[in-house]
């Protein structure tokens, strides 16, 4: 029973991991250690959710993946290449990794359409017409085709986050990182963002998602990683993690969530 629950489809297929964190550690310049020998893998087409209490290092871990935070020890392998090696061009790696932030971080001085087109235009040197065509296509995909000409500040939080997803997608990345994409949203706007993310997952996008949305993790994730204090507590399929957590700390984490929200998602 336990074994079947722990089966990892993508790993079984023998595919190489797209992203491999191999014992990475991270400390902030002030000396505060935030990650200790963290390891997990993300396979192509997989949705991996990072769970854990606030301050457990989930966001730092995700920022290490596109090198917005420098890894102080261990290896980070992206598409078979050790990107912690000194001669790796970080900019080239980031072009293939999309990222969505908790506070959207749209560029306030650009129209919504330009926000989506700016990555391809500046980073990929795409012709403007081509970039804007793609941007319009992606805005339609996130349900905002009529908002291209307005400024981000004129949109609701949920709309802004959908634009941010479109902006990241415009780079046509190999993997998408989501750093608590719904945490800054009013409750009624969470659904529209999660719907877009679910659609992406269904299309086969490789995704790493830091989230507190347990229902999303339970229903969409292929693999769940539980963290605490900068360390991995346990990992497994969502069914296994949610129904038969092995570690006391995982149970304690879920217990707290239940106290707060009164619900824990079931299958």
């Amino acid at each position: 029973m336990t074994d079947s629950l722990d089966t990892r489809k993508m790993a079984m297929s023998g595919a190489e991991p797209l992203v491999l964190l191999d014992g990475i550690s991270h400390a902030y310049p002030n000396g505060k250690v935030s990650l200790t020998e963290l390891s997990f893998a993300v396979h192509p087409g997989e949705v991996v959710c990072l769970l854990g209490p606030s301050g457990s290092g989930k966001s730092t871990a995700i920022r290490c993946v596109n090198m917005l935070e420098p890894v102080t020890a261990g290896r980070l392998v992206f598409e078979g290449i050790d990107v912690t090696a000194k001669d790796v061009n970080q900019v080239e790696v980031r072009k293939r990794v999309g990222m969505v932030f908790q506070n959207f971080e749209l560029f306030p001085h650009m129209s919504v359409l330009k926000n989506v087109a700016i990555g391809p235009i500046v980073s990929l040197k795409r012709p403007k017409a081509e970039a804007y065509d793609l941007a319009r296509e992606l805005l339609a995909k996130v349900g905002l085709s009529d908002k291209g000409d307005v400024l981000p500040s004129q949109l609701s939080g949920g709309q802004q986050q959908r634009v941010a997803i479109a902006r990241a997608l415009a780079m046509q990345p190999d993997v998408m990182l989501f750093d608590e994409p719904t945490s800054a949203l009013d409750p009624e706007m969470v659904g529209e963002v999660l719907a877009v993310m679910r659609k992406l997952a269904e299309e086969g996008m490789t995704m790493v998602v830091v989230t507190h949305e347990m229902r999303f993790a339970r229903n969409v994730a292929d693999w769940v990683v539980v963290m605490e204090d900068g360390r991995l507590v346990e990992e497994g399929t969502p069914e296994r993690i949610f129904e038969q957590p092995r570690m006391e700390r995982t149970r304690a984490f879920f217990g707290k969530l239940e106290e707060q929200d009164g619900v824990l998602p079931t299958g």
Partner: protein
Amino acid sequence: MFDVFFDYRGLFIEGLLVTLQLNAIVVVLSVAGGALIGVARHYGGKIVRVVLGIPVDILRSIPLLVVLIWVFFASPMVFGTRYIDPFVAAVIGLSLTQGAYISEIVRGGLASVRSTQTRAGLALGMTRTQVVTRVVAPQALIRMLPPIGSQVAIGIKDSTLASVIAVPELFRQSQIVIGDSMQPFVVLTTLMVFYFVLVMIVVRLIDMLYTRVAARGAS
């Protein structure tokens, strides 16, 4: 009563042109120089920030009047000549002082753009330079507009101090006319009206520009 302006029109017109020319050059040089220093101090690391901070702090501490007189008498020694045109000395003195203040405005403006915007730019595969020119600088520029407008207004008013080194700008020409015509009240009152109008035009233009782009600076 206003005959004095017709009688001395040659002097007033020259003063007007010199005042406008002086301020136009000073605005261009101080904004360009202030931007360079401000950007260098924000992005240049600790050593650059501290080293460039020394002249900025010095210039912000010394009265402009002293700077002007010092430049007028000291810069000939630096350039190996005996004399520097008062206009050039005024351009140097005013630009240095204004540039020091504007560099601080630029630095503050850049610092006011939160670091997560830089992260967002980097995450899109931009280089550091592209993040600065495409993401940070445009937002900072919008936020800098009001304080730069105030500083330019202060600069226009302070340009009257160039009269102490005999730059034939409007205030000095007016002093000469007062000395010759013995009509301080009418000349000085008109001068006040002129500076009020000039400064208001500049301030209102910058306000209008800001109002149009303010929404794009909010984040």
